[in-house]
């Protein structure tokens, strides 16, 4: 018997039927991961489709992917700071500032695009390092640091934009093209799906082999096949629908790649493990010899960098930067996306995928409501209601988990 299944108290489960019964047990005990959010998302989509037939049209779904990207990228950074148990209120301002710097250097100063991009993104990095330094050196709460950042960088953005205040990006620049007109050709999109599924199966099989060699329990091959098949179907359907219109946007693909990369960094590297540890219990992490300062610095830096990238993508998509770039509810949307996706505000619990799911929820609501011509008063109230319902589903399931003692 494998080393990890020898305890008598473990309730036995093996093969596909075992996996299914384990899953239903998890369902009943409320340990569902992102299943409830996905259900919430599906309900939202169904309701909007009923309210307006064009919601699930290829065209609108392609729009949705484009709309989701920049908030999603920013939310990715928020997931990281939330994992640490900290907060960044300034992602909106930083994104606006980066967009502004990109615009001014690229358009007004005529710098090469690549240089402008590098400067815009580096700015985010520097800001994050500055936050990290303030936090680790003086112990100022991140709420206050980033509140100051929210104001300060808004001011700087206005200063950078100067008198004009608003400027157009050249419509035919590579950046704008990437954000608005660059879509994968159908063949490439399908090939990509195949590659992703194959990579999944391969890594799963490799792990399985290694575990067997180490005398540990292994997932049944049939389960791997079933999961891979499910994954393939979902991805294929998605690509099929998106190809009905312009196709899979390169920008959205970049976002997905960032999500996967962040997820791997969090779950599979020493750095990510340290981040989760610090978020769970700083003192324990410090006593384990982790360089806690470095972790804070790197996470704040990563968050602001993601914000800068998100801001640049937003500017590219709008084909303009202005004083309200990054303003409005950018902050709240990004933070809400991370939280709705299931990342805890209290540190140590969350996943990069919550940025994707949460951003999809938020932008689906906003996109769906834009299709229905509602009074803005009603629109605000409906947004609130939908949000609440989507999250309540998730919370109810977590709650039952708590009742089962898995706090």
């Amino acid at each position, binding site marked *: 018997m494998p080393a990890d299944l020898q305890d008598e108290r473990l309730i036995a489960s093996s093969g596909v039927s075992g996996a299914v019964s384990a899953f239903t047990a998890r369902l009943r005990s409320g340990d569902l991961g992102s299943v409830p959010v996905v259900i919430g998302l599906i309900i939202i989509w169904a309701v909007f489709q009923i309210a307006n037939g*064009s919601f699930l*049209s290829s065209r609108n779904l392609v729009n949705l992917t484009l709309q989701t990207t920049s908030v999603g990228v920013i939310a990715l950074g928020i997931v990281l700071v939330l994992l640490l148990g900290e907060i960044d209120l300034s992602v909106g301002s930083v994104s606006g500032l980066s967009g502004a710097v990109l615009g001014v250097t690229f358009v007004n100063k*005529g710098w090469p695009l690549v240089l402008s991009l590098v400067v815009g993104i580096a700015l985010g990095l520097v800001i994050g390092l500055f936050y990290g330094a303030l936090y680790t050196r003086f112990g100022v709460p991140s709420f206050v640091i980033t509140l100051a950042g929210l104001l300060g960088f808004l001011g700087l953005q206005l200063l950078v934009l100067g008198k004009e205040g*608003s400027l*157009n990006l050249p419509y035919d620049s590579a950046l704008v093209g990437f954000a608005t007109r660059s879509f994968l050709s159908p063949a490439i999109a399908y090939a990509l799906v195949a590659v992703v599924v194959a990579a999944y199966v391969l890594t799963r099989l490799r792990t399985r082999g290694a575990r067997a060699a180490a005398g540990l329990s292994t997932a049944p091959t049939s389960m791997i096949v079933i999961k891979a098949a499910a994954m393939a179907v979902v991805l294929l359907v998605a690509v099929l629908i998106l190809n009905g219109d312009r196709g899979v946007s390169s920008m959205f693909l970049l976002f997905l790649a960032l999500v996967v990369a962040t997820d791997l960094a969090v779950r599979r590297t020493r750095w990510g493990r340290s981040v989760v540890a610090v978020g769970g219990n700083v003192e324990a992490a410090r006593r384990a010899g982790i360089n806690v300062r470095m972790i804070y610095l790197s996470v704040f830096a990563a968050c602001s960098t993601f914000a800068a990238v998100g801001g640049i993508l*937003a500017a590219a998509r709008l084909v303009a930067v*202005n*004083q309200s770039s990054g303003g409005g509810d950018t902050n709240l949307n990004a933070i809400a996306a991370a939280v709705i996706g299931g990342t805890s505000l209290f540190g140590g619990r969350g996943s990069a995928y919550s940025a994707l799911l949460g951003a999809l929820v938020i932008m689906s609501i906003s996109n769906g409501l834009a299709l229905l*011509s509602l009074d803005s008063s009603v629109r605000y109230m409906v947004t609130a209601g939908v949000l609440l319902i989507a999250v309540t589903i998730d919370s109810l399931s977590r709650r039952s988990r708590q009742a089962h003692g898995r706090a």
Partner: protein
Amino acid sequence: VSLVACGSDNGGDSGSGSGGAKKIALLLPESKTTRYEALDRPLFTEALKAACADCQLIYSNADQDAAKQQTQAEAALTQGANVLVLDPVDGKAAAAVVSSAKAQNVPVVAYDRFIENANYYVSFENEAVGKLQAQTLVDDLKAAGKTSGNLAMINGAPTDPNAADFKKGAHSVLDSSGFKIAAEFDTPDWSPDKAQAWMEGQLSAIKNGLVGVYAANDGTAGGAIAALKGGGVTPLPPVTGQDSELAAIQRIVAGDQAMTIYKAVKPQAEAAAKGAVALANGGKPESTTEKSGVPSTILDPVAVTKANIKDTVVKDNIYKVSDICTAAFAAACTAAGLTAN
């Protein structure tokens, strides 16, 4: 009626600067649209210099927050301002500022937006702006031979009292124009990306028959145009705007945007500065008309289209041709006949 009295007995005893230089406070409402800090403030400063060389300017910007504006007005009064030139975040709420100013015998000039009981009012009327935008759009469509079809309306922020005025003015024209307002949207925070996302949605919902877009300002117009282009709509339907942002002028040159509103801020600033100085010295401002008992100078907004860029923003030295015709727009500029001299 009481205005005269108020104005006259103010000369002697108001504020700390009564003996020497007069202090004029300019209170602007927000910094997120370009015009206030880019145009109104410098032009007003200049006009004030011209009207009264040793007058001192106190300046504040309320970031679209009525309570903050109240704080700033109080700060101005604390510093002994002799006149408040107030562009209110909310014209109605500004009544409180007026009454506390009056309590200290400080007259108030309502700048750009009407305030009841003010001593003087200088403005392009918001409703008139909305009307002009809508009228230009309708004329544009008619000129292109269209008499019916769907319009999309992108209004300003639902939380901005002025947006309601633009909306009202625009409706008064569009409702009876023969075109159908297929969908309407109050853009939260005047946010361009919200406008863009909404417009993209409407392209799925309305699909065809969209002949024109009313956008309340240049920012939202930019968002709408990005959506139309991204959605592959050709040719672009006419899109309106307001504020004469440089970016909007460039879009007009390039043919993406149909029009924007140009408010000749200079005469407005000059009228306000002169009026303020007159009030500070206990005199009466020159006025052309009267609105609800307040002596007023009402100016006319101008619609800027490709045809009259040169005669408006360029002529008034708001932008130089070289500002507008950057490399990216050089070709379009030549086509539009916009060349330096």
